[in-house]
């Protein structure tokens, strides 16, 4: 995609003549001034409200601060990985049901896919938080966040996998069948492995969504990055700086996951 992006941007503009070059130059100067002013305005806001004072930032020089944040991040990663594992298994089942199941199974799978795709994660979280105890089911905070996050992503994962299966050339299936493989063997040995390769980038994008959804862990009081940040906040009485750092950590992790996804998509 990146290569394509360069070509389209290249042809979008003609080689600029002297007049256009002057225009571009003027606008470049003007807009750099505006962007710089904007950034300065934000820094100034921090300054006048005293948020730049050392007491809000000093404790980030301490190792213990980062160790504590890292511990929270570990909680986030644990939830995200477990949720990813569950959501992949569920997504696979839904996809398999929709692609290969009998009529009834097909219908049920489609309904489940649409349902999990159309309901917000928070509603699932509240369901597991308030609803499960009504059945006498008690879960730890870890599962109370992991399961709803996994459930809410499963439909989207199923659709991603289905897209991959549909993208495999049908000659592959026909060839396998004519070699005497059963439908199931064909699916598991020939079609799905290829489909999986196609959709790895999209699956990473789904992992980003799962990781973002784990931020709601504070609803069920699970110690993730967000929750540990609020502990730091009450320890050092510094809200803005800590939450800002936490947000930047989330952004960086997701940024690099997305980069990885694009790189894998390009490699193909």
């Amino acid at each position, binding site marked *: *995609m990146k290569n*394509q*992006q360069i*070509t*389209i*941007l*290249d*042809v*979008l*503009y*003609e080689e*600029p003549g002297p007049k256009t070059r002057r225009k*571009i130059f003027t*606008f*470049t100067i003007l*807009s*750099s001034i*505006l*962007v710089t002013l904007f950034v300065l305005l934000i820094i100034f*806001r*921090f300054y*006048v*409200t005293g*948020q730049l004072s050392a007491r809000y930032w000093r404790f980030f020089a301490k190792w213990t601060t980062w160790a504590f944040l890292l511990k929270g991040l570990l909680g986030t990663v644990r939830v995200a990985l477990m949720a990813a594992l569950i959501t992949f298994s569920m997504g696979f089942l839904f996809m398999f049901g929709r692609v290969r199941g009998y009529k009834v199974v097909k219908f049920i799978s489609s309904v489940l896919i*649409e*349902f999990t*795709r*159309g*309901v*917000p*994660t*928070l*509603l699932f979280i*509240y*369901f597991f938080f*308030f*609803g499960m105890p*009504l059945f006498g089911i008690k879960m730890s905070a870890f599962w109370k966040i992991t399961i709803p996050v996994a459930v809410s992503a499963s439909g989207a994962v199923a659709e991603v996998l289905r897209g991959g299966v549909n993208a495999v050339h049908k000659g592959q299936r026909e060839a396998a069948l004519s070699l005497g493989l059963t439908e199931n063997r064909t699916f598991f040995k020939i079609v799905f492995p290829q489909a999986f390769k196609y959709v790895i980038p999209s699956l990473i994008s789904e992992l*980003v969504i799962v*990781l*973002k*959804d784990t*931020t*709601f862990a*504070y609803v069920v009081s699970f110690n993730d990055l*967000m929750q540990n940040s609020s502990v730091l906040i009450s320890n050092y009485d510094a*809200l*803005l700086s800590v*939450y*800002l750092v*936490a*947000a930047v950590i*989330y*952004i*960086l992790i*997701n*940024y690099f996951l*997305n980069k990885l996804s694009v790189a894998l998509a390009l490699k193909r």
Partner: protein
Amino acid sequence: MSITELLSQFGHEYFLGYLTTLQLTFFSFLGAFIIGTVMTVFRVSPIKPLRTFGNFYVQVFRNIPGAALLILLVYAIPYLSIVFSYYTCVLIATTLIPSAFLSEHLITGINTIDKGQIEAARSLGLTFSQIISKIVIPQAVRSTVLHMTNLLVATMLTTAIASQVPLNPLDLTGLVAHINTHATGGIMAFAISAILYCLTAVLIGQIGNKIDKKVRVLR
């Protein structure tokens, strides 16, 4: 609680909650469309500072978790003596995040256009603004209809973060949490909200498919 009990006691609240969710979705998507388009123009413009700003903006808001952004807006921004109402905070969060994704979709749409089209247009003597308005934008929009309807659904799902702040009236998710903390609403309380969300999502998807079939550029 049975469904009739629930509806007689909270029916009106559900109606208001649904309206709040729809309202948030509509305004957020509208705002996202405007901001996302402006950012896309920045990102394809030949002016470097604007490109950098647009790219930075998109990377920040497509990667920040909704809850983290809302918490920043509600609890952290007031420390800079900038105070928004709860509703405005939710609206800002649910606008900025989809706007980043919208810009990404538009860029993808622009990329689907064959460069031969632009070369052809230029050799026919079309000016730059004609190429943009007659060739690039129409095709980019037409090829991203499905992305846009998916984004509209995603925006609706994002508005559920409204349940994290005390709104009046509550949104659909916040209402369920409210019912369950003050009474035992049971499974039905969740089911009503879930079905409303889901039907809306399916409806948006259907309309999107219809529009897409009509306007898609066949290649």
